[in-house]
């Protein structure tokens, strides 16, 4: 087995543990490369099926191609897609483009939207793959287990995550009190009301992700490749806060070259993300409150 086979097998094992441990399981799909790899691994783990809903938080500021790609893949792969949004904040114009600071905007449009979509407080918009229509789901049951595609190499506080990570009823994370996790035995017993994040990609690096996309030929969103103007996105997010990088890489192979020997060898992946830079430890602060 090579290193990609090992990573794949380990992630599949974790996905299967999650599936057998949580009756109300969902997976976050940001449309980005990591969570799309996670979606692919799900189809591997369950032999072509995706047996849990995929939750996408639509901030209304996503790059339009992302939404188009999302809906196309959902139809093609028969996905049970659930979309959540902070409609109230958007209606009131409480956003970065209307003058709110970046971190508060992230909190409202991402963290809050995520929290209230997962716990069923806010209506969920669901794609019905059988009827091929969007439906609203009111008072949905809370998702108690949520699969998330974070990687340890992305950022310091993520490097300390557990694979099965419990959040309390306020979705808060306390890194000093995390329970032990031994060998491949994960914490799968939880008090009622606990919300758990499952992280099958912790040990993957950005390079591993691209190597795997290339090997498996995963249909990844084209924004990661040169857009014809010598620019591409290295990390996807909301357009007011995410900038493309200068690069003419137009396929996974060329991106792998950039990461191993080329221009991005020593450049941190999220360097195009503005919200990481507003002061020290801000991503940790956001994550304590439920940010991914």
């Amino acid at each position, binding site marked *: *087995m090579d290193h990609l086979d090992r990573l794949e097998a380990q992630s599949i094992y974790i996905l299967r543990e999650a599936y057998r441990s949580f009756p109300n399981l969902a997976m976050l799909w940001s449309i980005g490369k990591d969570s799309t790899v996670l979606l692919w691994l799900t189809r*591997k783990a369950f032999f072509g099926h995706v047996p849990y809903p995929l939750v996408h938080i639509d901030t209304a500021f996503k790059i339009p191609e992302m939404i188009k790609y999302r809906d196309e893949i959902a139809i093609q792969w028969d996905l049970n897609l659930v979309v959540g949004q902070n409609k109230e904040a958007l209606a009131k114009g409480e956003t970065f483009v209307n003058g709110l600071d970046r971190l508060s905007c992230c909190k409202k449009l991402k963290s809050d939207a995520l929290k209230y979509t997962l716990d069923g407080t806010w209506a969920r918009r669901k794609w019905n793959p059988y009827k091929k229509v969007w439906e609203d789901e009111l008072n949905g049951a809370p998702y108690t287990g949520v699969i998330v595609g974070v990687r340890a190499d992305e950022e310091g506080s993520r490097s300390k995550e557990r694979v099965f990570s419990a959040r309390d009823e306020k979705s808060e994370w306390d890194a000093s009190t995390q329970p032990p996790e031994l060998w491949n035995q994960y914490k799968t017993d939880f008090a009622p009301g*606990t919300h758990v994040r499952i992280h099958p990609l912790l040990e993957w690096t950005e390079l591993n992700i691209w190597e795997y996309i290339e090997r498996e030929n995963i249909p990844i969103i084209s924004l990661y490749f040169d857009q014809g103007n010598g620019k591409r996105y290295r990390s996807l997010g909301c357009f007011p806060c995410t900038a493309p990088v200068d690069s003419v890489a137009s396929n996974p192979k060329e991106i792998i070259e950039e990461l191993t020997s080329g221009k991005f060898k020593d450049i941190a992946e999220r360097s195009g993300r503005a919200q990481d830079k507003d002061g020290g430890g801000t991503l940790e602060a956001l994550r304590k409150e439920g940010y991914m």
Partner: protein
Amino acid sequence: MQRLNIVITGHVDHGKSTLIGRLLADTDSLPQGKLESVKKMCENNARPFEYAFLLDALADEQKQGITIDSARVFFQSKKREYIIIDAPGHIEFLKNMISGASRAEAALLLIDAKEGVAENSKRHGMLLSLLGIKQVAIVVNKMDLVNFSEIAFTKLKVEYSEYLATLGIKSDIFIPISAREGVNLIEHSASTPWYKGPTVLEILDSFKSVEEKENDDFRMPLQDVYKFTRDNDDRRIYAGTVTSGELHVNDEVIFYPSLKRSRVASIESFNTPVKNSVKESEAIGFTLQTQIYVRNGEVVARADQSAPKVSNRFEANLFWLGTKPLELDKPYKIKIGSAQSTIYLEEIKRVIDGDTLDRANEPSVGRHEAACVIFRVHDLLAMELFAENQKLGRFVIVDEYDIAGGGIITEVLEQYTTRRTKALHVSDLLVDKASTNADFEEELFALLRKHFPHQFPTDNIG
């Protein structure tokens, strides 16, 4: 590029984070600007720069100068890629140290040359041996504080070797270093002309990746049985991760402990060419030629190979991390392979103390203690000796909701048969109910198949 998981353990303040920070910096493994930005942060806060700040990412860690949780750090030598696990040394965070160390294939154990062997240095040595980590190098740090004295180094080496020998660990690799000054990390240093052994980087590259052994007998803990009916999928797939050996299409398999058997009809996978065999470490699924009802947690073995041991009693070495002590006769949950069951502590043979090593006749095992014990399980389980099969010879104990302890099986004991003499616990009843349902379901399907065969054209019982 191959990858190896390494854990760095040792007592608090003996310099683990500094060692890793310095390794990252000296091998150019840091992202551009990281070193400069951390140095600037130190300047702004009027504090001296430390390499540990590169690692201790959490705000509380930087404030207190202490590692709270183990971090996964990615790093590359010319030979291969590493995940270095920076495990906290503070006793308060022992559970985090063990969580980190359990993922490792090899370990560096740090000892402060000036302070000498601390109780935690001993405890960590013992835990590494219990976790089954056989490749251990001892790194004697802060040699600059003892003027790079060979005598001080040798004295410490003799003292700690003797301790390791009592644990049955043989490590003759001791490296004198100064993490802060970069001595003997990447290159040999003029400060220790008397030291002729390997540098830290050389020792990392010399560790072996835990290779899969292809000649072992096949074992797969059954993680789940899938029957997805969508898109007219009628496969009933037995899924799990192979812990050892190889399985082929048409092999006869036996499930333990139920002893049900059948033959492999197909090996199933997604986005791969058709597979006729699978081997160790693969997360797989297969279908069977006849439909049988088996439960999650059974161990699948090949009929033409050895059988796993089946019992409900075993002896184990165990370490306890629970906030409440491990007590006799109280119901806990065991997780072993993919099986879960209720378990009782039957006997504490001795508590192993980090310092004095042995205390007999203890009433319970306390937090952060290790012990040799006998457990009694409610159900029969398939298991192995740790020495023979690491993955099926280790287990964790769950108290209430948390994993509170872990251990390795040192002896499988004769079955306990008069379990009904004890008062029943609620958790026993729950387990019984599940097994009754399983048997009932199987009988029901057998009857349905017999009397309504037209409902089961392909003999699928899902």
